[in-house]
């Protein structure tokens, strides 16, 4: 088998990704779907950071006495992604509040039932 320890990180990231994916698909509660989405996002962040790691390297802050640094580029990408992720989650939650006000429920199947009826 290829070195399990080396690829172990990626497999766990995939497990997290699939759990988030499952929550978004299988659960009918809208808030649960948003939480599933944020789980999925965190796993993508961890995937990028795992790619950027260098053995024996320190944080990408240049200081005397340290020569090997981990990759700063992946960190920058993820910094942007985290904040955008929270912005979208906040908007999604505001919409959930409005949906609950209009439909009286946040279960996806009940909402669809009301839509077909109206």
């Amino acid at each position, binding site marked *: 088998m290829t070195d399990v320890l080396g690829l172990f990180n990626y497999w766990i990231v995939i497990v997290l990704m699939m759990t988030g994916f499952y929550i978004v698909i299988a659960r009918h509660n809208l808030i649960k779907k948003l939480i599933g989405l944020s789980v999925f996002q965190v796993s993508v962040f961890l995937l990028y950071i795992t790619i950027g790691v260098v053995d024996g390297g320190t944080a990408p*802050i240049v200081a005397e006495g340290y020569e090997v640094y981990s990759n700063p580029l992946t960190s920058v990408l993820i910094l942007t992604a985290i904040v955008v992720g929270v912005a979208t989650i906040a908007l999604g939650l*505001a919409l959930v*509040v409005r949906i609950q006000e209009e439909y009286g429920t946040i279960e996806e199947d009940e909402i669809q039932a009301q839509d077909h009826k109206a």
Partner: protein
Amino acid sequence: MKNHVILRIVTKLLIPYILLYAFYVQWHGDFGPGGGFQAGVIFAAGIMLYGLIFGLQAAESAIRPRLVQSGVALGLLLYIGVGIASMLLGGGFLDYDALGHDGQHHGILLVETGVFITVASVMITIFYSFAELIRRQ
């Protein structure tokens, strides 16, 4: 939340340190981990703590919703203003070398302050609008 004496005293003790830490994170972003986003979120968390413990009225009188909503646009304006300024001074858009001798330093600090204002104001407006809904219920 009025009768929590211990919580009120501890928050009165902690909030100055939280806000001070937010500014430290903001301006220390060049040398250590930190920057505009984290500082904005920490600042907003300090205000939210104040709002939760001392009530929405106290928080809204401390930081007016009008001021915060203008802060949302102000931060972005500051960011784009730095870009335009560097264009007027001869460099390209958002090219901080044109801002003078130590242009990179000043440019990055100004830009991070713009991000700080926008992120802090957005998080506080979201908190105010949710708290408004809870209070109306």
